[in-house]
């Protein structure tokens, strides 16, 4: 992982260079509605609403030519209305280096980032670490339009459970995936931002369902899942998801904004375990 190797070097560079670090503090709070929280096929679909909040402290060091190194820590929590077993707290850290190719507002940029969070759920079989590495590039096209592309690798290592089925791993909540995201933003007004994007994700998905031999045969792991009911199993499957997302952001002032994001996605997973879901998120974001 190039990003992991780069971060210590870049941090050392930050310490030794004549740059100045700036602290910023960000907070988010919002509601999310997931039409298929359990990533299930039609008969087993369960939806829920969640309250989510995040606070983060970021130190950014700028270098000549517009490059920057940022790193910090965050705390995030989610609280679900119907399935409190999914309530969780995440504590983590992140770092990213952004390089501007040239001078000015329209210079393209590259970014490499990494984050790690420790996840603690009420239903503690899901507890574990979530690691993410991002490589992104973007460019502002004019005063209104900007585009970006982001490749993400993520790995989730959860507590391994006892085998629920003989011969099948119980490590259902671990996994890794790669995601490619293409996005654009359009500033419709001084305080009005529209966004649209698409993504493709390939890797492990956790799909919840009743006992199903066909799905079990295709699963890399399976475990009992007490969150959605005693008769439900969590299957770790290899799947490919594709989706579209649209967003609307309204500035509430110089330091805060309200965003509404709508996302639709379909997943084709092993064992013909195909499902679709929609996610709507309303979030207040503040920067201090």
């Amino acid at each position, binding site marked *: 992982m190039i990003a992991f190797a780069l971060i210590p070097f870049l941090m050392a560079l930050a310490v030794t260079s004549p740059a100045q670090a700036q602290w910023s503090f960000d907070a988010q709070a919002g509601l999310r509605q997931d039409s298929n929280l359990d990533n299930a096929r039609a008969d087993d679909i369960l939806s829920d609403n969640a309250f989510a909040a995040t606070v983060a402290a970021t130190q950014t060091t700028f*270098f000549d030519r517009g490059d920057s190194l940022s790193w910090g820590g965050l705390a995030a929590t989610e609280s679900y209305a119907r399935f409190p077993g999914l309530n969780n707290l995440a504590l983590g850290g992140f770092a990213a280096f952004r390089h501007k190719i040239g001078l000015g507002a329209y210079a393209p940029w590259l970014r490499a980032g990494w984050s790690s969070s420790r996840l603690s759920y009420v239903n503690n079989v899901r507890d574990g670490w979530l690691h993410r590495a991002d490589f992104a590039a973007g460019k502002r096209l004019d005063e209104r339009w900007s585009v970006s592309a982001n490749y993400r690798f993520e790995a989730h290592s959860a507590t391994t459970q006892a085998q629920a089925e003989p011969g099948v791993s119980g490590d259902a909540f671990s996994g890794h995936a790669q995601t490619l995201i293409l996005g654009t933003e359009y500033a419709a007004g001084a305080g009005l931002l529209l966004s649209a994007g698409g993504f493709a994700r390939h890797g492990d998905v956790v799909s919840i369902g009743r006992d199903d031999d066909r799905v079990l045969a295709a699963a890399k792991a399976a475990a009992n899942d007490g969150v959605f009911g005693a008769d439900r199993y969590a299957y770790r499957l290899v799947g490919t998801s594709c989706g579209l997302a649209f967003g609307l952001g309204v500035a509430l002032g110089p330091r805060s904004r309200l965003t509404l994001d709508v996302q639709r996605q379909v997943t084709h997973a092993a064992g013909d375990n195909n499902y679709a879901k929609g996610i709507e998120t309303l979030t207040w974001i503040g920067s201090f």
Partner: protein
Amino acid sequence: MKSFTTRVGSYFVATLLLAAPLSASLAGELHALVRDQKGQPVVDAVVLAMPTDRRLIEAPKPTRNIVDQINKEFLPYVKPVYVGSLVHFPNKDNVRHHVYSFSPAKKFELPLYEGAAAPPVLFDKPGVVVLGCNIHDWMIGYIYVADTPYFAKTGSDGLAAIRALPAGEYVVRVWHPDMEGTEQATMKQLTLGADVVTTEQLLSLKPTFHIPRQSGSHGAGYH
């Protein structure tokens, strides 16, 4: 473009024209009102008076020209200076700025600095200089490098006053960052004496949009 000029003290003008050698000793004022196509006063328009007889151009008294950076904005948004002027760019924010311009009239860069650490920049070529900050993309400002020392900038009432003008013939023109068309299209011939001359300029402004201060974080919210 429809325009009109009201001359006050025109009685004196003919006399002054006949006594040109004396004209430099008499100082007049030009008051300009700049309105947009809706009749609204235009702020931050630069009104310039160029004497037809360039010998009337007198070197202005040295002044300290400053473009501040406050709350991650350039202040003032528009700064007119006479060609050959030095401009200081003090940073009054608690973050560093990296001021630059790509404009043909002056290409320069003040790499990351804080406080008053940046050296002043010499603007030695007439024209418009667009300012930016390489860290804060939304920051934009303008320096208008004038080829005449006789200029003023309109306030929120659309009014600008150019004082201590030697009597004589002038070509008056106006520039604004959002104007449609050219400065040349705004040129008007005026005769100035020892009194106040008022003029009105109509500018057609185009809708402009600046990079917003806030941007989203596309790609961060995919679940």
